């Protein structure tokens, strides 16, 4: 089995290296074939691993492959931990990656950096695999940083665009802030447990209970919060979310791959993996839940006022990540992973569909210039419709199951502030429905606002784009129905996740669960269902029925509009406090400490001081001999006097 795991991880890397080094010489066809072959191999093998571990209940595979380094008594190695959680993640990542690879053939057709792009996305796949399959913190961090790096490279792929460069720098820096907290958390893990290996850490987890850090703070809470800061950076929770909308500057395939399905889910995956640690601290879990709820609600609100098709989907991603985080907070880890999986499918689908629309309209991204596209682009329309229905939680689709489970779990939890979190996620359903259907209506329904020149050339996009859409639409519809029971309640993820008995949200959920089909029929009487219907009707009213009402409301609620449009001022805050602050500190350091202190005072100053001393002593050298003689005689007198006095006046006896 080890060979299979190695192949899964290394096949994309091989593809990436070969195409990266020799891509231009090999030509486009061969380059994309090599990389797609690599990822396809990984996908097939991941399905096999899934079958082996999850369906056939194989043992957990935990083995160190290679000793990376040895520092003192600490052994850091490259190793694989494959259990059910890993298997699920492998399938998700590899499948979405394969779809994106195929999609890129059509999307980047006209681009000069065709082969470079394939190399990058294969490299990303390798990095994500490393992260998921790792069995110790160090390798996890390596994968963590590597996905951040490749994300940086890909966001700034069109590096001649000024906005792209700013966006990728922003992404990297904000990620770095999260990584800083993450690294501190890892350092504390090392300090308390003496090892970075997962298995050893979790088996000793009792060690940390009752210890304190920085005074009276419980150590485990601090460690979990620091680890969560890393997750906040990677999974774009408030306030480290500011990089995700900017990352839409990159080509759409990477928005689908990285910022919908895989990299941003790394944070969620990490918290689930660390579930034994998080279960020990109620405070950390509450913080996780609250931040998730804030993200879910407020980012959704921002999605309502966006006019760029990709930005709407980006804020939707942020909101859904908030949902996943809330689920983590109430200790419903399997629900979070379930939502992660379904979300990966339908969000990637939505991004790729948006990309299809963009390509068809010759890179037009403003939805105010779209409309009525469903007749001209049927496949794109139908798949987008399916994806949207999944996203808003229409009964029966994948998103319905996962979202509803999260809402129920929050409802049953008795962590402090759970009531407020419940309110936030329920309201979030309304908002999600609103902005998703708004997007759908404005792009595909209604009168066409496309300018006439583009409309003449409008047609459905190439099969290399539409086939992945169809392939992603299928799981978006059916996977929820089939996997909800085994994953959440059937113990699929049991050997990977620990839940403390005091956090019984999942238990209660299980006790209320009958069957997947029963959930559909039961949904009609639940609050989220009516929230969704309400959001849909509101969207229909504002976008198709009475489009002028939107402007009326906008003019009446000017201040709220302003707040939403300026994205709650996070960007301004960051710019004023951090960017300008850093510049100011740099300025001060330059002017005062470098120029004035070191240059003037120390360097020039010591020269001046020497000269001053010299000038002080210079008059002694008069050149007149009798001055020298005078000095000699007077010093003789003084020395004599000194000797006489120093001998304790014995001469007086």
């Amino acid at each position, binding site marked *: 089995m080890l060979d299979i795991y190695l192949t899964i991880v290394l096949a994309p890397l091989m593809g990436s290296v070969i195409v990266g080094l020799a891509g231009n010489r090999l030509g486009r066809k061969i380059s994309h074939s090599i990389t797609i072959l690599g990822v396809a191999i990984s996908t097939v093998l991941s399905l096999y691993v899934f079958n082996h571990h999850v369906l056939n209940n194989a043992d957990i595979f935990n083995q160190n492959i290679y000793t990376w380094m040895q520092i003192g008594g600490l052994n850091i190695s490259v190793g694989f931990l494959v259990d059910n959680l890993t298997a699920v993640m492998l399938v998700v990542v590899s499948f979405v990656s394969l779809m994106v690879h195929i999609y890129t053939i059509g999307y980047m057709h006209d681009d000069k950096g065709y082969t470079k792009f394939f190399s990058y996305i294969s490299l990303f796949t390798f990095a994500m695999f490393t992260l998921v399959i790792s069995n110790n913190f160090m390798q996890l961090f390596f994968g963590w940083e590597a996905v951040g790096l490749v994300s940086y490279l890909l966001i700034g792929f069109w590096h001649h665009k000024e906005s792209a460069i700013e966006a990728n720098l922003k992404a990297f820096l904000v990620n770095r802030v999260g990584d800083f907290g993450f690294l501190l958390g890892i350092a504390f893990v090392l300090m308390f447990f003496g090892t970075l290996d997962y298995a050893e850490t979790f088996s000793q987890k009792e060690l940390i209970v009752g210890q304190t850090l920085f005074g009276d703070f419980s150590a485990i809470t601090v460690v979990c919060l620091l680890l969560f800061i890393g997750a906040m950076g990677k999974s774009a929770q408030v306030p480290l979310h500011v990089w995700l909308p900017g990352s839409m500057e990159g080509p759409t395939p990477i928005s689908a791959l990285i910022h919908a399905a895989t990299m941003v889910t790394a944070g969620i995956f990490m918290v689930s993996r660390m579930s034994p640690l998080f279960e020990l601290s109620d405070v950390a879990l509450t913080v996780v839940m609250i931040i998730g709820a804030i993200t879910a609600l407020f980012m959704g609100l921002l999605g309502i006022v966006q006019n760029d098709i990709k930005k709407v989907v980006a804020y939707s991603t942020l909101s859904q990540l908030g949902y996943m985080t809330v689920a983590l907070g109430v200790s419903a880890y399997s629900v979070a992973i379930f939502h992660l999986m379904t979300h990966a499918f339908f969000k990637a689908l939505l991004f790729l569909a948006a990309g299809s629309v963009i390509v068809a309209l010759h890179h037009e991204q403003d939805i105010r210039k779209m409309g009525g596209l469903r007749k001209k682009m049927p496949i794109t329309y139908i798949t987008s419709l399916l994806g949207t229905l999944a996203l808003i939680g229409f009964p029966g689709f994948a998103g319905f199951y996962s979202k509803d489970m999260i809402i129920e779990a929050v409802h049953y939890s008795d962590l402090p502030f759970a009531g407020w979190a419940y309110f936030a996620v329920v309201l979030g359903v309304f908002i999600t429905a609103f902005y998703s259907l708004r997007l759908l209506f404005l792009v595909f329904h209604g009168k066409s606002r496309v300018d006439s020149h583009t409309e003449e050339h409008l047609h459905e996009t190439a099969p290399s784009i539409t086939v992945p859409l169809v392939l992603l639409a299928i799981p978006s519809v059916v996977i929820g129905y089939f996997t909800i029971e085994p994953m959440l309640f059937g113990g699929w993820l049991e050997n990977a996740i620990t839940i403390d008995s005091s956090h019984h949200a999942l238990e209660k959920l299980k006790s209320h669960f009958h069957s997947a089909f029963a959930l559909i029929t039961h949904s009609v009487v639940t609050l989220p269902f009516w929230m969704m219907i309400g959001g849909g009707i509101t969207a229909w009213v504002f976008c198709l029925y009475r489009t002028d009402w939107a402007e009326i409301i906008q003019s009446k609620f000017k201040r709220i509009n302003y707040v939403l449009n300026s994205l709650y001022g996070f960007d301004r805050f960051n710019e004023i406090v951090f960017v300008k602050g850093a510049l100011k500190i740099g300025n001060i350091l330059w002017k005062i400490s470098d120029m004035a202190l070191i240059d003037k005072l120390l360097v020039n100053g010591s020269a001046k001081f020497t000269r001053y001393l010299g000038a002080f002593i210079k008059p002694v050298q008069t050149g007149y001999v009798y001055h020298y003689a005078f000095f000699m005689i*007077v010093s*003789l*007198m003084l020395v004599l*006097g000194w000797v*006489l006095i120093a001998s304790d006046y014995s*001469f007086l*006896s």
Partner: protein
Amino acid sequence: MITSRNTAKAALWLILTFFSAASLWLLLEAEFLAITLILIYVGAVMVLFMFVIKMLDTDQSTLRAQFTRYLPLGIFVSIVVIVQMALVLNAGPFDLEVVGVPEKHGSSYSNITAIAEQLYTIYVYPFELAAILLLIAIIAAITLVHRNQINSKKQIISEQINVQAKDRMRFATINKDKVKESK
């Protein structure tokens, strides 16, 4: 001596001082040194002094101008030093009770022999060094003051390089008529 205005008179006063010192040394049974003092110091060194004094023109008027300015300070410094020294010297270790008067030697005692016994055996090395020192002094004095080169043909490169044609050659027109005349 120190207050005399004339340098020559000061030198004469100094010679008197040396004579007095020599007589003191005779009292202290250092006969050889006393005679040496007179012969060499007064006879050679002071004569040299007189030579130089008379050779050079010492303008007395400008030199005396500064005299009164520093007189008080000079007297003060010297009195302080004398007092300091007297304080030390008046005390115990040098008194008559501590250091007794040694016996004077008999008439068969020869100071020169006694010095020679020590000088040529124990202190022969410093003796040789002193001789070399005098040699060096001679050479130095001659080299310093010597004005002309003695019998040495030396090349002065700078003059050789700076020479110009008109220094070496002179065109002369010889009148044929004059040559004819001296037949």
